[in-house]
């Protein structure tokens, strides 16, 4: 079913902006301030901690997905459901683990790869074994599904950048390392809220742009003139795979030319590329223990109320 993204509910109702996302975190932020005022200061720190939490929950969902042996698209759908749900709810008031398991369960059904509700719960128990466990039975998950469906307003069809990457791969050649790398970057981007803010095809293009950028930076670093065609494709041992493709584009100059020929809002794409950069610069700071700690506090608060 080739449908139009802009006519879909994803394009119509689920393109949010940063302000909306910030607003959706208010309850959690307020609570964190209450309990941890003495320890951490500053709004940004709280935001960072919450982003960290969302990063950590990505890992939980991805781990669950891998245990269930589902495709990347299903993981991406589950994470998008999860993020959409938490634009309207707070971690403090709903257990993110329950929501995560339910999102995965629903995403599997939605993407025609149904899983037994019990195996989702079982794997969720395994994944969360060292993080306080998962104490829900199928009835609870089934009930949660209703709330999830309600919060998602039955907008279940989610578009992902992978599809655009496949289309771009026609230009670049199926084996193009650019696409491969962009694919990995798109996977990584589900750690952030980017999928809620930008249209998926822009995310895909930005990921490709980022890869080209890195390639060029590396080539410059190695002191090779990118303006000459000679020896371009094999810089740093990459790009050689696409040479045999015939239609593939591999030289940096050609790649840049091809990229600038894409008719897309480049301002937005640059914004996303900045986000990608942020993501990777944060990578080292991410502290899973800290995230677990925050998450535990939020979950405790929920048990109290």
């Amino acid at each position, binding site marked *: *079913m*080739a*449908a*139009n993204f802009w*006519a*879909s*509910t994803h394009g*119509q*109702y689920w*393109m*949010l*902006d940063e302000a909306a996302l910030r*607003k*959706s975190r208010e309850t959690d932020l307020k609570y964190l301030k209450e309990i941890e005022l003495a320890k951490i200061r500053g709004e940004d720190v709280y935001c960072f901690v919450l982003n960290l939490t969302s990063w950590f929950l990505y890992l939980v969902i*991805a781990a669950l*997905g*891998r245990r269930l*042996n589902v*495709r990347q*698209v299903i993981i991406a759908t589950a994470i998008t459901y999860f993020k959409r749900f938490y634009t309207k709810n707070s971690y403090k008031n709903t257990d993110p683990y329950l929501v995560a398991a339910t999102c995965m369960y*629903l995403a599997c059904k*939605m993407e*025609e790869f*149904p899983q037994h*509700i*019990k195996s989702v719960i079982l794997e969720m128990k395994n994944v969360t074994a060292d993080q306080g466990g998962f104490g829900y039975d199928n*009835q609870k*998950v*089934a*009930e949660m599904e*209703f709330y999830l*469906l309600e919060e998602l*307003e*039955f907008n*279940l069809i989610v578009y992902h950048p992978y599809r655009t990457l*496949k289309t771009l791969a026609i*230009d670049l050649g199926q084996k193009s390392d650019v696409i491969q790398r962009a*694919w*990995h*970057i798109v*996977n990584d981007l589900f*750690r952030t809220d980017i999928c809620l803010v930008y*249209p998926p*095809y822009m995310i895909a293009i930005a990921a490709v*742009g980022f890869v080209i*950028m890195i390639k*060029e930076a590396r080539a*410059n670093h190695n002191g090779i003139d990118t303006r000459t065609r000679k020896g371009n494709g094999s810089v740093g041992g990459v790009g050689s795979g696409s040479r045999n493709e015939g239609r593939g584009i591999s030289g940096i100059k050609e790649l840049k030319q*091809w*990229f600038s*020929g894409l*008719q*897309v809002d480049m301002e937005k*794409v*640059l914004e996303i590329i*900045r986000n*990608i*950069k942020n993501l*990777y610069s944060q*990578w080292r700071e991410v502290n899973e223990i800290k995230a677990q700690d925050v998450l535990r506090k939020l979950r405790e608060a929920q048990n109290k109320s």
Partner: protein
Amino acid sequence: MSTDKKTKSPRSFHSGSTSSFTDDRGGDSGKARAGESAAFGGDNVLDTLMPLTVGDNSSPAYAPTSDGDKLRTRAGGDTSPYVPNSAEAYHHGGLASDKFADYPDHTFTGCSPIEDYRILEKLGEGTFGEVHRGTHERSGNQVALKRILMHHEKEGVPITAIREIKILRQLDHENVVSLTDMAIKFSNATDETGETQPPSIYMVFPYMDHDLAGLLENPSVKFSEAQIKCYLKQLLDGTNYLHQQKILHRDMKAANLLINNRGILKIADFGLSRPMVDKTLTGCVVTRWYRPPELLLGEKRYTTAIDMWAVGCVFAEMLKGGPILMGRSDMDQLDLIFDLCGGPTEESMPGWKDLPGCKDVQFGKAHIRRVKDEYERYGKQAADLLDKLLVLDPKKRLTAFNALEHSYFWTYPKPASPRELPKYESSHEYDRRKLKMSQAEHHHNNHHYDNVPPSPNANVDIENSRYRNREHRTKKRERSRERDRVDDLKLLDIETANFTLMDELSNRE
């Protein structure tokens, strides 16, 4: 979004399409590249990209694919008016829907509290759930509310329902029913064991005055030839659209074709439909009377041709004024088909001997194909079209697209325009069924009104639902097979009487 824009696109993206990328399977590969990109971090990296953005736009190297179209048509502009800017915009789509005024067909409102609707009398019932008439409290619009039945409540919302919602949300055609809203009812009531009942989910559709089966059974309704052409044309238009969208309906029948008093026909009930895939599917689809020979013979790799057989049956039903092939069992159904369409031979149905179900078939006598002779009296063109639809070989059966080209639609009398068609008092198949039930009641006093048995629906979709109890399923199938063999059936045993009961009922009369 115009429909032909969608249908023209050569590339279809399935959620499950295979990928050439090795990392498709849940790979979490970020860590390696994190270091790599960090090494090139810093603002200068961004700067290096800037030249990219000021490159020449004159020669877009972008491949003209459907995704590419999107980039061109939408992203070519500098701003996107489609991004709601306020936090409220996305919450209930209210703001957003104003912005999307250029998409008049996309009126889906998301999810409403059930209190927004007043639920009125029951319009229909089956394995899929119940349909009630209702009104939208604020607008006063008439709607049909279909409640999703929870067969396995501990498994949550059935995948068939998810599939139905997913498919309906992606469809947009005049002759396909449109899902306008969803509503959830959280009940506080408890059952005998003290457990709270699971919530109910309702799908909301615009109200349609009739279904085709109800109209045909209504003795005061007589279709003119132009009217039949008008309905059939709409049916084929809708079916063609579905098949172009790569959707198999799998339960095409007169009772699932809704008609309103503006003469518009809409294909409804997507409870069994699914996207086309190249793999084996369940054979437990399509109500028996409309089931094509290949399904009855056990074909598991069927195509859109199964819907076209049913369209042929509906067409003949409109001509004749009632269902044409009312088999009492699957075997009987095959007998009736071969009696009308001739027996299967290597020529009329290549490969039929390899189908798993054929060994059970006994052929008493050789049949001669007599579709044309039988329906000649309804017109030469009509008989010819029907003759090309009710074809044993699914590969030679007319497609919806080709059927629309048939001269039947281009000879006198021309298809009526929907507006000219007569208006009728609301007629639903279910009303007729209730009537029959109350007649049957005289013979079976142990039966209750509200336990009206389901219509001859196809069995619930079972593929992919490997989590269902297999044993139970096989037993159930065996039981229904057994029942098929028995001629004189009891009216009871509602639980397992999915598609046999109504057949029996109709045969009683």
